Every structure is written in structure tokens, then in C-alpha cells.
């Protein structure tokens, strides 16, 4: 929808596009293959007096070879072409994910047991709650001060590991003002389940007045 009104892609768009391709193909392939199998079972189910197949293995034999390489290779070739196109689509999506927009606001995130600390460009530090202007991309520099965490904002289709001693970079962009949940997606101890923060996307004007009031204080 954002694209319709001429906006830049978000992490949500990138994920949703790819997801719809994968899930459509996945469901089709799954249904076709499993149905074919069920069809074969129903069709070939032994009924009273059905004759034994001619090449049925006899006790004490070595395994018989049964031809079918051509049919199989054809099937695998078909899967290969699907799989290769999926890899290419993934790489295109990845290129977009790896390239944070140039206008991004930069925020440093430090995960800890069990919460989130955010450092704004002006040095302001907030715990548990991050305010951003909607429409502007945010670039996160994520690390951890204790154990391995993972910072995920599932509604924004955004996720990145928070690892002690290492800083990872990720970005997202929100068009819709509102509150988004930030959760930990890597088991990090007893408080893992309640390691929840808030991302608040504000109207740009509101954000600006809030942000400048911080600088003033």
C-alpha cells in the first residue's frame, strides 16, 4: 500500500513479497506431492487376488534395480529450477535489507538481562522505550552487555542478534504511527519471556518537539 502512494519499501514489504512467493509455492508443491502419494496409495492398495508385481523382490535376493533415472532427474530438474529462482529472489531481497537508507536516524541498542537500552544520536539514553519519527528509517547498532539476545520487532518484520562484544547493524522504517513491541527472540535466562520493550512511532512534528526538549534539558 505504501508503494501505491510512492513511498520507499520497508522491511515489511521486503518480507511480505518474498513470503507470499515462498508460501504460495510451498503450499502448491506440498499439496501436489502429498496428493500424488495418496493417489498412488489408494490406486495401488492390494485388493483380494491382485497379482504380485512381476519384479517383486524375492526372499534372499540382492536388491533389484528399477529404472527411473529419467523421470526422477526430470522431477529434480523441476525442483531445481524452483529452488534457483527462490535463491535469486532471496538475494534481491537481501540486497535491499543489507542497504540501510541513507537518511536513517542512528540508534544504539544495548540488550541486557532483561530489557533494552537505547542511545539517541544526541546521547540521550532511554530504557525499555524507543521513540522514533514515523516515515524516517532507523538504523540500529545492536549489542549486548551480558548474554546472547535477539532484538525482534515482529510487526515490522525486523530482527537482529544482540551479541556481547559485537555490534550488528540493521534497519527498519515505520509509516504508521503507533506502538510496536520489541521482544527478545533468543533464550536469555529466566526473564526471557518478559524482555519486552516498546517502539513508539510518532508524528514527525511531535517527535521533533519531544527530541529537542531533550536537548534543551
Amino acid at each position: 500500500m505504501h508503494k501505491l502512494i510512492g513511498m520507499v519499501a520497508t522491511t515489511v514489504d521486503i518480507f511480505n513479497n518474498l513470503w507470499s512467493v515462498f508460501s504460495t509455492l510451498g503450499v502448491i508443491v506440498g499439496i501436489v506431492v502429498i496428493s500424488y502419494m495418496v493417489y498412488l496409495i489408494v490406486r495401488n492398495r492390494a485388493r483380494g487376488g491382485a497379482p504380485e508385481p512381476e519384479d517383486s523382490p524375492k526372499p534372499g535376493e540382492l536388491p533389484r534395480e528399477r529404472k527411473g533415472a529419467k523421470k526422477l532427474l526430470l522431477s529434480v530438474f523441476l525442483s531445481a529450477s524452483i529452488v534457483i529462482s527462490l535463491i535469486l529472489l532471496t538475494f534481491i531481497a537481501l540486497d535491499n535489507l543489507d542497504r540501510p537508507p541513507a537518511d536513517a536516524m542512528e540508534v544504539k541498542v544495548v540488550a541486557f538481562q532483561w530489557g533494552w537500552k537505547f542511545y539517541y544520536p544526541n546521547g540521550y539514553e532511554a530504557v525499555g522505550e524507543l521513540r522514533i519519527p514515523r516515515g524516517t528509517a532507523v538504523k540500529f547498532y545492536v549489542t549486548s552487555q551480558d548474554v546472547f539476545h535477539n532484538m525482534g520487532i515482529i510487526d515490522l518484520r525486523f530482527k537482529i542478534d544482540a551479541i556481547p562484544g559485537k555490534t550488528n547493524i540493521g534497519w527498519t522504517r515505520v509509516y504508521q504511527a503507533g506502538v510496536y513491541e520489541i521482544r527478545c527472540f533468543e533464550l536469555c535466562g529466566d526473564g526471557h519471556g518478559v524482555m519486552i520493550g516498546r517502539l513508539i512511532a510518532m508524528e514527525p512534528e511531535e517527535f521533533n518537539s519531544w527530541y529537542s526538549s531533550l536537548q534543551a534539558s
Partner: protein
Amino acid sequence: MESHILPPGSTVKRWLLTTNHKDVGILYLVTSLYFLVVGGALALLFRLQLAGPNLNVLSPSAFNQAVTVHGLIMVLFVISPLAFALANYIVPLQIGARDLAFPRLNALSYWLYLFGGVLVVISFFQQRTLDVGWTLYQPLSSAFSPYVGVNTGGLGLALLVASVTVSTVNFVVTIFRSRAKGLRLTALPMFTMCILLTVLMMLYAFPALLAGIIILASDRILGTVYFSSPEGGAILWDHIFWFFGHPEVYIVLFPALGVIADVLVTFSRRPLFARRIIIAAMVIVAGLSFLVWGHHMFLTGMHPDVRRAFTVTTIAISLPFDAIILSFIYTLVKSRIELKTPMLFALGSIAIFIIGGITGVFLGSIALDYVLRGTYFVVAHFHYTMAGGGLVGLVAGVYYWYPKMTGKMFNEKLGRLQFILTIIGFNMLYFPLFLSWEMPRRVPIYPENLIPLQQVATVGGFILGASFLVMFWNLLYSLKYGQPAGDNPWGAYTLEWMTKSPPPPHNFDGTPAFINGQLSFIAANGAAHGEPETHLSVWPFMLSLASFLSLLGLTTNLLFTLVGLGLLAFSVLGLAGERFISREEKIGERWPFESVDRMKLAWWTFIASEVMLFGVVLSAYVYVRTTSATWPAPGTFFDIAHGAVNTFILLTSSLTVVLALASARIGSRAGTAGFLAATLALGVAFLFNKYNEWSELFGHGITFSTNLPASTFFLTTGIHGAHVFAGLLAITYLLSRALRGAYAREGHETLEYFGYYWHFVDIVWVFIFPLFYLV
């Protein structure tokens, strides 16, 4: 005849002492099903917690313990051991062997497995057991987890790895050396083929886990800083763990694929479709499985090109699986399908695995994995593959071979009932988890919109649990009341059906051989002549008990450790001195190891796993070294002179071992003993010099926890020193026998095998010396 060889099955003695592969298989089967109940009960506990969005069935800590131990038990103590229960019983029968190549080692594998599991269970009673996820991420499970129960559980895993290593060596040697004449490697029944590929993967994957556990235990117990330092830390563990962890996925899956392939042929009455391509595809998967581990680390900030490479390998590995699964399905074309219980489970397992495989492609795509990582989608995916493909496939095997193992037919109606319950329960349990893909895994509370999905899953979990109760009832009931099954109730073609049900201790009357592709039994059974083979030994049990006590003492009372070590020495000597007869058949198919006898092959296999162990330990060192910004210059931290002297000593000792062997070959008793004594002296000198070096370092206040250079040095040279020490114990034993005239007359192979080990330990030092002292 049987009563002369083995005590009756009703006696404790039989089950404690048996080394017969069929008995050990039954022990594995019962034990793995017991752990299935344990792991399943834990799962039901946290499914109860998840029956509502905000319940208090389990505390957060108890919840984490339940999910962690559930995962570890199911993967390591249930699925693989259940596969090896079947492998133990069936592989020797399928290849026409009388037993595994090393019956006592086989019993040892079992007891180590059991005692490893006991340690894990004990850890529950030490306030807290492992609560850090089955992936044991760092530094959560080192610096941030002070609980002693975690140590005990970890040591239980170490015993399990020991068990796996021993059984890997055993199966490699057995399948290569004990095949019936005419049974080429490419003609192996698919189950045995899959077990072979499984143990080859185990051979390279489990030493990585062992190295990881050793480093972790050292961090936790000795205070080294591998995982608490930012240079090593989380990422180092990820690499080590997933280098093991991804092949492990195929390790639990492959035996089930083998079961399914054999069952499909039997119940569809047609040969396997494109059998050779399936085998080729499996070989490709086994190889490729070591090149995909990075997809578990897509979000750790790895280099973009590396991520791309892992995406390609990960998605590419789905192609050989395509070939395997499609061939299974094409096998059904123009067939005559009998839907007996084993076939139902095999077909059900394929259908479930297809869903698991397709969703695996989703996770291989980095851009999707970015979002799906750490969610219930992943949980659903790996249960569809490991529980659906793995466990359900193995259940097919349990039913398929039950008549062979017991001589009784199970109840078909109950079997079908279990199948229906399994399929319904399984899909009710796991499919909603795909749909819960926005929810983080390992979290005891969730938003209200997920209540219906999570509740359906909980109900499904209990149905799945009930399905296994039906199976247990069926297996027990039929043991007593089942109809006699006959030798070959399914009309199958593979060799295990060409003998009685259950088979006699020696498996076949006569030696099976495939002459011109047709089975015949050669009357002159090599085993019938000479001293009868041995089927009982107390030492596997004693050795395992000793190892158990030694490890238990580390986290409870060191008295146990002292008793354990004493018992260990006693048992090793007992094992070495025992007269245990197990012969290789005179004829057999042994390509490509016709000229490598089984002891030699066993040593080479064992050393291959040791290569991996040291490879991972040294890689960990190189990793922290290269990621570390500061590292002391050569010669400033460690004294090069100590290293150089030790290099000289060890290389000389390699020479003396060669000379001892040469002396034995020409029959010189004095030369053999003399050169062994010289080797012993050199080894002692090496350790003495090492002791001085360590003392000097300690004197300067440099200890395990000083910094990474110290930690890596102490641990790497420590592991190496322990290998030297073990070697010295062996030399002492060899020397004591050489002084009484052994080896010079006969049996000089023993010295040769020891030589392999000793040279290997020396070669490792040749890597350690420059890496630690010179660069």
C-alpha cells in the same frame, strides 16, 4: 544350544553381562523408550503451561529447564538411541554377521549411554538442571549460569558422546568388514546403508560436540575464558555447536529414511525406485551437511558473502532430498500396497517430512530467516523433520522388526489405532505452531490472539502422548499374547528375515553368502570349530559405572571421583586381560578394506575422530587468536625453550616406538622391552617438563583465567597432555607384558596399533608447538 551360551533372559546376569548385539539392541530399545517417556512428560508439562496465555504451571526457570532438557533428551537420548536399538539388532542380521565386530565395545556403548542419561536425570535434583536451551548458547550457559546441575547435565552429554564414539567405530568396522560374501557395499539393504552413512557423519560431527563440551566444562569448572571473552564468546560457540548440530539433524533422520526405504519395498512388493540415485543423493547430503551450519547464524552479523554461500548450500541440500523423497513416492507406482502398521507409519512419516522439508527451504532463505528465526515456525519445522521424519519413521521400524525380535506378531488393530492417534495428535500439535510464527519460542506467556492455536497444540500433544501409550501396551501385550510370527511374516527379501524369529545367538545356521546374487548358506561355519565365542563380559558395565562415578564426583563429592578412577583402572585392566573370543568370518565381502584387519580399521576410525577433536580445539584457538586485537609476541608469554625441548622429546619417542615394533617383529624380547621402556621414559620426561612449565606460569600468577592466551594454552596443551598420559598408561601395560615375553613371539600387531595412537599424539604436538610458541 542357547542355554550354554547365554544365561536365560529372566536373569539379571544376562542383561548386565551380555555382549550379544540382539540383547544390546533390546537394552537400547527399552532405554530409549523410557527416555521417550521422560522427554514426552517434560513436553506435556510445558504444553500445560502454554494451555493458557498467562498460566503459572511452571515458573520461568522450570519452563526453561523443561524445554531445554526435553530437547536434549529427545535428540540425543531418544531418537538416535532408538535408531541404534534397531541398528544393533538388525544391521548384523542384514549383512549376515554373527555379531558386531567388537561385542564388548557395543555393550560399553550402551552402558555409557545409560549412565549419561542417568547423570542428566540426576541433575534435576541439584536445584536446577540445564535451563539454557538445548543449543547451550554462550555466554548464557557459561559465565551466566552458576548452577551445579548444569555441570552434571553437561557431563552426562560427555558420557553420551563417548558412547557414540565407541559405537561409531564399531559400526564402521562391522559394516566394512563383516558383510556376507557377495554383499557388495552398493547392495546393502537400505537400512544398513543409512546406518553406515549415519555413523560416518557421527564420526566427524560428534568430536566437534565433544570439543565444545570440553571447552565449556573448562570454562565452567577450571575458569578458562573462551566463552566469556568477547573475542571467543557467543560466535565461537555457535560455530562449534552448529558444525555438530546441523549434521546431527541428518544423523537422527537417516536411520528413519533407511527404515522407510526397506518398509516401502516390503509392503509395496516392488524394488526401490532409482535405488542408486537415492544412495548417491544420501552421500551428497551426508557430505553437504558439514557445509550448511552457517544458516543457524544468519543474524549474527556474518560477512554478506558467507551468508550467501550458506544460503546456496542450505537450499541446495533440499535437492538431493527431493530425489530421495520422490523416489520413495515413485516406488509406489504400479505396486501392490499392503497397508499394515509399519507401512502406515512409513507413509505417514514421508508425508509429514514433506511438510518439514518444504518449510526448511523457507528457513534457508536468509531474508525469511531474518523474521522466522527464534519463532514457533522454527519449532514447527524441526519437529516435522526430526520428530515426524525421524521418530515416526523409527516407529515404523519398531513395528516392522518387532516380529523378528520377539517371534510374536503385534496387534494390528492397536497398531492402526496408534497410527491414527499419532497422525492426528502430531498435526494438531505442530501445525498450529507454524501459524504461531510471530511468537518467540521458549516463552511461557503469549498474547491472547494465540490462545486457540496454542490450545489446539496442547490437546494435540496429549493425543500424541496417548498414541505412544497405545504402542507400549501393544508391544507388551503382544509379547505375551501375540500370535507366533514365523521367520518372514512380511515376505520381505532382506537377509534378517532368512533366519528364525527371534534368531539364535549366532544368528544363522551356517555362513550366509550371496553366490551369483542368490543367498546360500555355507555349511562349514567357522564359529562351530574351536573354542566357542564369548557373549558375556562384566567389564563394559564396570567401565561405564566407573566413568559415571568419576564424573558424578566432580559435581557432588570428590570421593565418588576417587572411587570411580580406581574402578576405572581396575576395569581397564580387567577388559584388557579378559579372554574374550569373537572371530571374524573367514570369508566375507570387505571392499575396500580387504587388507586392513578389523583392529587396524578400528584404530584408524578412532584416530579420525581424534583428528576432528583436535581440529576443533585448534580451530577454536586460531579463531580467538585471529579475532583478538592484542596477543603477546612469540617468546614473551610462553618459554620457547620448553616447547622446543618437548618437541624433541616427543619426536624421539615416536622413533623408539617404531624401534620397539621392529624389535618385536624380529623376535627380540630385550629390544622390545628396552625400546618400550625408553618410550615410557621419554613420555614421562615430556610430562615432567610440561609440569615445570605450568608451575613456572602459575608462579608468575598466570592461571587458566588470566586471559585468552593463557586459557587456550592451558586447555589445548592440557588435552594433549592427557592424551600423552593415557598413552603412558598403555605403555606401562605393554611394557609389563613385554617383560614377560609378549609381542616378541606373536601379537606384535598390538604394538603397531599403539604406535598409530602415539604417532598421532606426536603429530598433534607438531601443530601445537609452532601455533602456540613460534607465531
